[in-house]
């Protein structure tokens, strides 16, 4: 049953084949059995889950059930959940019990979803391997010695291991797509402003976007339906109606114009991955798509620009963690400066510190123009690349990541190598456009993801394109060994 999609589970619940309580107990028992080895949960909210399930069952018995009523879900530990510890993967928030719900958490609950728990992640979403978490690394269900990707590594691993039918994630530079790729699941990063950021702990405010992580595009569409929409509590939320994502899933893709950016296939891309992407593109051809080469000439600048913009924003966003009102405070501060410096020095991990320091430097007197302003200009160039591309084609496709899941510890001593693993995903964040990663095969026993990047607010089309591919293939149905 744990291998069923949300659509199937929803039908089973509606047919009274099982109750939400039974479903929830099943996933809780799977979590008990597997989550320790994967280390994908920071918190399991067993009591809350059972209570939610009872509420869902009661709603259903009164005839008030939607497609997500009673479906279990887990949140990346970056989404504030009222009364539940929300750590953001950091020691500095290890004792933080959120006093409110993130809008995303609120909406998922309102849709009747059952909260199983909170998922491990890179500290403050800064990382591409889930190794920067205060709670230790998450292991990839496909290979226990490999990383699950990051920063939404716990989310990807939990979904891949069937410990939850779906999870939420956030994506600042690839943090939904890259772990989705590494774990063989489907992950959607929506258009900036489509999903509310309220209560989603900020890393880089102009880049962060929450989105669904599930096994199929159809499931992602269902969860996205709950997550998306205008929120007056977020100034950057876009007031625009939300389409019925599921209704668009089966639209024909005959005549779809696919652009293949040549920059995705240049140096550094694993040949086997390139071959898998080529064959996925062929699949699209068979479904009626036209394929043409295209260029994103400034793509190579996306990592450098990102490592100014994201650290600059995070350097300010993380100033609030000062040991005064909540969170970690150092022992016996000798004065105010000591309180700040030691609480932050002891509370943050090395990667977070590096990024705060880089961001602080990039904004400091004398360097603002050289770094911050320059990066904003480069961001404009990169954004224009996408604008130009979407005048010619409907969608851009390429690999989600330059490699499959790398080994635990392989890149922890080399920040630059780690940063470059996001080379293909960062552009969409800088421009704010939506993108989805779907499984398209394996290299060895590790999954490979393909990324589809759409124009602004083209989520329903991305989900449609992904769904049509998944109707024609079965990569998304593969399950890692040991989790049957």
């Amino acid at each position: 049953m744990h291998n069923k999609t949300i659509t199937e589970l929803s039908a089973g619940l509606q047919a009274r084949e099982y109750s939400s309580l039974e479903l929830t107990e099943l996933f809780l028992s799977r979590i008990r059995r597997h989550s320790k080895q994967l280390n994908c949960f920071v918190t399991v909210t067993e009591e809350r889950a059972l209570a939610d399930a009872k509420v869902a069952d009661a709603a259903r018995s009164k005839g008030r059930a939607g497609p997500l009523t009673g479906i279990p879900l887990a949140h990346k530990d970056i989404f504030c959940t009222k009364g539940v510890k929300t750590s953001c993967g950091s020691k500095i928030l290890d004792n933080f019990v959120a006093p409110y719900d993130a809008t995303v958490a609120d909406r998922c609950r309102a849709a009747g979803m059952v909260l199983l728990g909170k998922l491990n992640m890179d500290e403050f979403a800064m990382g591409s391997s889930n190794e920067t978490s205060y709670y230790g690394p998450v292991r990839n269900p496909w290979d226990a010695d490999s990383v699950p990707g990051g920063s939404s590594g716990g989310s990807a691993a939990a979904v891949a291991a069937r410990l939850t039918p779906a999870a939420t994630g956030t994506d600042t530079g690839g943090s939904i797509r890259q772990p989705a790729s590494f774990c063989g699941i489907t992950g959607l990063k929506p258009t900036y402003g489509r999903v509310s950021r309220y209560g989603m702990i900020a890393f880089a405010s102009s880049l962060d976007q929450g989105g669904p992580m599930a096994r199929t595009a159809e499931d992602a569409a269902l969860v996205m339906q709950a997550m998306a929409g205008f929120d007056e509590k977020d100034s950057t939320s876009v007031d625009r109606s939300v389409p019925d994502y599921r209704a668009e899933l089966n639209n024909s893709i005959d005549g779809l114009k696919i652009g293949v950016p040549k920059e995705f296939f240049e140096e550094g891309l694993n040949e086997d991955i390139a071959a898998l992407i080529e064959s996925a593109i062929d699949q699209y051809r068979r479904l009626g798509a036209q394929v043409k080469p295209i260029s994103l000439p400034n793509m190579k600048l996306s990592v450098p620009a990102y490592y100014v913009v994201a650290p600059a924003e995070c350097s300010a966003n993380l100033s609030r963690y000062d040991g005064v009102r909540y969170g970690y405070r150092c022992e016996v501060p000798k004065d105010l400066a000591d309180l700040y410096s030691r609480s932050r020095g002891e509370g943050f991990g090395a990667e977070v510190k590096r990024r705060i320091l880089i961001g602080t430097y990039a904004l400091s007197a004398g360097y603002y123009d050289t770094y911050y302003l320059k990066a904003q200009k480069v961001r404009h160039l990169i954004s224009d690349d996408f604008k130009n591309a979407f005048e010619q084609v409907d969608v851009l496709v390429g690999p989600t990541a330059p490699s499959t899941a790398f080994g635990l510890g392989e890149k922890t001593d080399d920040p630059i190598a780690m940063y470059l693993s996001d080379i293909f995903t960062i552009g969409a964040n800088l421009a704010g456009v939506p993108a989805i990663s779907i499984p398209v095969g394996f290299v060895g026993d590790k999954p490979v993801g393909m990324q589809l990047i759409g124009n602004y607010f083209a989520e329903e089309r991305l989900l449609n394109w992904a769904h049509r591919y998944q109707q024609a293939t079965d990569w998304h149905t593969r399950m890692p060994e040991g989790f049957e």
Partner: protein
Amino acid sequence: MSLSDAEVRKIAWLARIEINGDDIAAYARDLSGILDLIEQMNEADTSDVTPMAHPLAQAQRLRPDIVTEEDQRELFQSLAPQVESGLYLVPKVIE
């Protein structure tokens, strides 16, 4: 761009992050490496490009002037390391 230990100390102070003396050199090395990566931006000619601060090309939405928040001091202060008489306590502030 290579950062000296002194520069790292200065930035760390601005960011109020204590870094142990032993670790300064490693940070200097890592940060210098990141700056080298960042400086690849200089390959781009941006002389005619306007800066882009945000992906959304729209204006700030405004909120009506209505009090919507209730007092939740007790809940919020249950999270605080040190409070007294409703105040957050910190080491002595010198003006």
